[in-house]
């Protein structure tokens, strides 16, 4: 049963990377879109792509937290004790982002919108970096076992965490650029399709380069993870690489539809590869999934809650997406339909 819960946890992490990640990435492009005049059009596309359930994407983070603290409470304690600083920064970033989301649409003055937009954009970069650094710290076993505190500084300022942070920022930027190409196309905005396509290509190349460099970093800094990635998780790593390269080729040639699916595949498989590579540990080489899991009653409750979510929440979410995709009022034109 602990295995099932661990799988659910990783489903949550992957969903957060894909949905939340794309949102963070949109914030990244918002940040680098340039001055108010030059960046106006890209920002309009970014704004538009932010759908109605937008912040609900971040419920995946809460989901991961809840599963972690109920099912692997000791690991959660170790992680929060050790990684106090990056998690605190991430929490602040999320407050800034979330409240900018709450306020930005409700204010109309350009100056206000720009201020909220800036808070939104900057925190969109900081949060994934911190999350990546946290992942690096966990994956390298720098978080000690048994609810103990590790090194508060070097646990997350180290080669692998740096790699994790940079990779997270680059990957979400890539993912989001590919989505934005799609959104710009739906709006028939040729200039913006080209704009985001070029950025998606650059981000894909950079992400690939960082991932390649990562191989050497991991070999030196995280032998256990490296071993896992080159054995158990190798098929996933290869799948990710193939998806990445294929999406890059399609992006260069301008075939956007499949590029989108392939980019999702590339990111999902790299996150899953991390999970498979560090199996059977929650925290490599000290805390095993099977031995650190909470009592079976708790795990059952989590499985039940997850089942309810699949039955209740997913259809509702589907309904919302459907309503959002079709459906415009007569006066609103058909360009987004």
């Amino acid at each position, binding site marked *: 049963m602990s295995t099932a819960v661990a799988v659910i946890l990783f489903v949550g992490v992957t969903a957060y990377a894909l949905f939340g990640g794309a949102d963070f990435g949109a914030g990244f492009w918002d940040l680098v879109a340039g001055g108010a*005049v030059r960046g*106006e*059009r890209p*920002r*309009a596309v970014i*704004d*538009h*792509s*932010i*759908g*109605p*359930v*937008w*912040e*609900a994407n971040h419920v995946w983070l*809460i989901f991961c937290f*809840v*599963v972690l*603290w*109920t*099912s692997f*409470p*000791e690991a*959660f*304690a170790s*992680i*929060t*004790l050790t990684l106090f*600083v990056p998690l605190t920064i991430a*929490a*602040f970033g*999320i*407050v*800034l982002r*979330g*409240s900018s*989301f*709450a*306020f930005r649409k*409700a*204010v*109309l003055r350009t100056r206000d919108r720009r201020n909220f937009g800036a808070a939104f954009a900057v925190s969109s970069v900081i949060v994934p970096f911190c999350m990546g650094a946290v992942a690096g710290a966990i994956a390298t076993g720098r978080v000690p076992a048994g*609810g103990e505190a590790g090194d508060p500084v070097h646990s997350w300022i180290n080669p692998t965490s740096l790699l994790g942070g940079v990779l997270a920022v680059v990957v979400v930027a890539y993912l989001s650029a590919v989505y934005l190409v799609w959104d710009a196309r739906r709006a028939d905005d040729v200039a913006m399709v080209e704009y985001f396509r070029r950025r998606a290509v650059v981000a894909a190349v950079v992400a690939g380069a960082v991932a390649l460099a990562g191989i050497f970093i991991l070999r030196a800094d995280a032998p256990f993870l490296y071993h896992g990635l080159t054995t158990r998780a190798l098929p996933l790593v290869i799948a990710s690489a193939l998806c990445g390269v294929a999406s890059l080729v399609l992006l260069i040639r301008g075939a956007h539809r499949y590029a989108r699916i392939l980019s999702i595949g590339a990111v999902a498989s790299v996150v899953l590869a991390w999970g498979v590579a560090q199996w059977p540990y929650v925290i490599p080489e000290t805390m095993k999934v099977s031995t650190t899991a*909470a*009592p079976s*009653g*708790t795990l059952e*409750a*989590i499985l039940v809650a*997850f089942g*309810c979510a699949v039955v*209740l*929440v997913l259809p*509702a*979410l589907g309904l*919302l997406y459907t*309503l*959002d995709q079709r459906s*415009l*009022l007569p006066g609103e034109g058909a360009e987004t339909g």
Partner: protein
Amino acid sequence: MLFTEVVSPVLAVNPVTWARSQMAFTLAAHIILVPLGVSWAFFTLLANYRAIRHQDEAALALAQRWSKYMAVTFAVGAVTGTVLSFEFGLLWPRFMGRWGGAFGVPFAFEGLFFFTEAIFVAIYIYGWRRLKPWTHFWTGVPIVIAGVFGSISVIAANAWMNDPSGFTLNSSGQVVKVDPMGVIFNRAMPLQAAHMVVAAYIVGGFLIASVYAMGMLRGRNDRYHRLGFLIPFTVAAIATPIQMAVGDSLTRWIYTNQPIKFAAIELVPQTRSDVPETLLGHLNANGTVSGGIGIPGMASWLSDPKTGTATVVQGLNTVPVDDEPTIVQINTVHLSWDIMIGLGTLLFLLSVWYGLYWAIRRDMPRSRWFLRIAAASGILSILTMEAGWVVTEVGRQPWIVYNYMKVEDAATGNTGVWITFVAVVLLYIGVGVTTILVMRGMSRRFRQDGGFDEHDTPYGPAEPLAPAPTPDHRDDQPVAVP
């Protein structure tokens, strides 16, 4: 080296007090948004129902605008709620490490309800002009249900801290077996949850009504303001006497199950019968009570009317020295209790005034004094709720898990908590002020523009993208400019 020798000592401050302050502050802030998240959708649906049933234009405008304000407070509440889930780990890692398997369970369900609520808030806002009126009305109902059950789930976790159950410990104190139903349906849960849900309707009702009472005091006596006042105020006025009954039962539960909290509430240093109900006053370090007005025998009588003033109330002297709450904590609990009861009674009298006037004249009281007090009722009800929450939380001290784990054993060892505390306070002040400014701005805009546009709100549908720009766009163009 610079870090360890120079920076570290400056940052090294005992984290327990700061962790406690930060948790208290962030919870105190979040709890203001909770009633709006729980009850506003219900008021909106009442207005929506009226709008459809009676073709009432004012009710329609009200429901539409409320749904937009609601989205803003909901989004801010989601953010402050997310901070709390970070803080469980960042501030109380040892608590979560040891008890997460039990305490954490209700949150799995809370997450479910929260997700549902977020989705239907979006669908509801989306549906104003895109769904048939009654279909649209029904998409609001899940918000109300999910709001109630979501807050019940969170309160179940808090109630569990007051009455830990549903787990088995081994000889070294580790949780080895968890019964999720036992955790969620702990004995403190039903009354505590009822108390909070009713409080959510009272605070939400008075708070929203107070805004329209202000409007009426400024001479806006149109039907729109009248409805905006009547709908939430009536619900709150009905809920207030219910709350007194629920509160009374809950207090008796505390008398039986958390005698020390009860002793602090009633300021009872020594176990005795014929305990007076002390209004105000405080406990001294030597165990005497000074100041205040005593109503002879009242506390005993209220604890169990059957045995009357002969009811014995357990005193603070029965706590083992190591488990004693501090004098300051005891006085805080007692004073908060007095504030809750005092303000609660005031709100009850206001409700009675309203109810009687309505029964006789079939109208709301028009006197300026009624409107003035009603305009203050929002703030007063928030204070009442905060005071009640202080009684629950401080009354449990020194325990975080009643009789199992103390707060000081639960806190993080990270000595920089005071920095995050200061940062959180500044950030929340900013968020709070902005929330109010944004909502005022929305209100001004509604008054000027009229009409309805669902794009300018969080959770609202995506704005249709304007056609590709022409070269001469100006910077101050409204809308469509991010």
